[in-house]
């Protein structure tokens, strides 16, 4: 196991690489979810990456502005996360010499992976509960802050609304959501930015979602959501494990993924 910094000095990234002793042909880069979901799932995804490292070279990294990487959370943007994924893929290829590289993404990380793959010649994509609509996801983040405030304070003490938060962004001010300072740039990219890629960005895709998330597929182009030689889709009875800090592991997602990856 190697723990290191990589990338440009002005954009220092933190990474962890694990691989078996023997030479391996395939590697996987983990694309983390956003904000608190990255923290709450960190221990569980790290554990899974160590298990996968029996057969694959596995690289985890922290996008710029998050966790151990440089910058502050205000530097974290969607476009930056896509750029950092490319840096991580390049590092993995150079460091291990693997012939095939895949991206694994959870939630926001899945959206980033789908987008980043377009320019990286990625061999396979693995998604867990992808965010399919960034605009909706961003609205949910704002509502989450509002909900937390309502839980902790009396309703008459809550001084803002989702509308006022949007106004702050529009005026160029960052907004604090549960201790994460989201920048106006992040807001602009999330609300005015990309939709799910129109064409498949890798030859093989496994899409795993929770049963409750079936409805979210509507906003995704049909070639991603139709079972084919290239695309596998499964809806599994998992809990939204990213919502808490427990040790509960999404074993159904993991088993389905491992079976597919081995193939």
């Amino acid at each position: 196991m190697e723990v290191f910094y990589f990338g440009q000095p002005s954009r220092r990234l933190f990474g962890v690489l694990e691989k078996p002793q023997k030479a391996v042909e395939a590697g996987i880069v983990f694309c983390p979810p956003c904000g608190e979901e990255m923290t709450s799932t960190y221990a569980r995804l790290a554990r899974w990456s160590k298990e996968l490292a029996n057969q694959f070279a596995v690289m985890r990294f922290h996008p710029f502005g998050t966790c151990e990487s440089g910058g502050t959370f205000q530097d974290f943007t969607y476009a930056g996360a896509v750029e950092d994924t490319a840096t991580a893929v390049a590092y993995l290829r150079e460091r291990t010499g693997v012939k095939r590289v895949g991206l694994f993404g959870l939630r926001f990380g899945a959206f980033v992976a789908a987008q980043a793959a377009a320019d990286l010649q990625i061999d396979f994509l693995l998604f867990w509960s992808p965010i399919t609509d960034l605009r909706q996801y961003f609205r949910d983040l704002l509502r989450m802050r509002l909900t937390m405030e309502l839980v902790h304070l009396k309703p008459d003490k809550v001084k803002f609304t989702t509308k006022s938060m949007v106004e702050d962004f529009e005026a160029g001010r960052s907004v604090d959501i549960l201790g994460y300072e989201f920048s106006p740039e992040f807001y602009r990219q999330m609300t005015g930015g990309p939709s799910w890629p129109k064409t498949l960005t890798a030859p093989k895709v496994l899409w795993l979602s929770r049963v409750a998330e079936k409805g979210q597929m509507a906003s995704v182009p049909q070639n991603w959501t139709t079972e084919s030689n290239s695309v596998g889709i499964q809806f599994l009875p998992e809990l939204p494990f990213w919502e808490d800090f427990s040790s509960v592991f999404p074993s159904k997602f993991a088993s389905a993924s491992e079976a597919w990856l081995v193939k």
Partner: protein
Amino acid sequence: MTAPLGQIKSEIVSIPADGWTLHGMVHLPAEFSGKRVGVILLHENFNTKFGTHRLFKDLGDRLAQAGFLALRYDDRGMCDSPGIRDLTIADRLADARASVNFFRMRYKLDALIGWGLCLGAAIAVHTSASHNPNERLDGLMLCSIVADPGIVSLPQYGYERVEISKVAQEFFLRGNLLHKLLNAPRSLKSWSRKLGVLARRYLRPAPKELARMKETIGKVGKLLARYEGPCVLVFGDKDSYLADFVERVNPGDKLGLTKKKFPPRQILIKDGDHTFSSREKTEELFQITLDWVGPFLLGELPPQLDIVREGSVGTSVAEAI
């Protein structure tokens, strides 16, 4: 002394612990002008060294900016530490002792302060009771401390065994009881669905690790009462652990904290939650930390009497809730 954040260096370290290796990060000040004082940051339950909303990483930077060294680490077999481990409470305690020892020796520290959040605070108290001088802590800053053993049976601790007393407490003692009783008929249907699950979980044998965890947490109050160094307790007034501490761990100052020669200071952060999860509350917590640890750099102890937001344990907190 406050250096620009850009001058703060951090280095990756490997900490040996009972044959395991812990991955850690040390924040170093740009220069030393006083004593070499370290702060070890002990994280909460299933979390990692950078912490929720990057609390530990940012605190490490701020401490280094103010002239301190700070160490954060991942427990054995967790997160960025090599290997896989179903972590036990004994592992956590051993890892904390190993890290304290490593930090003190490797960086030749004059003083070492334990800073813990939630379970990390409980670990800090236990570590302070070590008989090994290299493992001792010269000060304790304990935030949102878990000291009530009942808490560790809650789902977020992952043991999935319900304690009826805890459920009853949640139902009867939290919120408006009259309102709850008036709404009881309507709630009955919902509760009848939950009863089966609760019964199954209640009848499930308690995992041994849960028993060990509860025993360890159960000792925190007494160890805190015995600790002779400077200590500060910090709670957010919206944190339910505050009520647990006051009502179950130290009701009426049962532990005798106020009678100690140096009673622990206590600081309430208004509108703060369990992890101080807003930039404003985090900043307040950082400022409190820097104010409290500051005197150590001069070889002095922090003042025991506080000026604002403070009272004696078991009185002001009780009033606050």
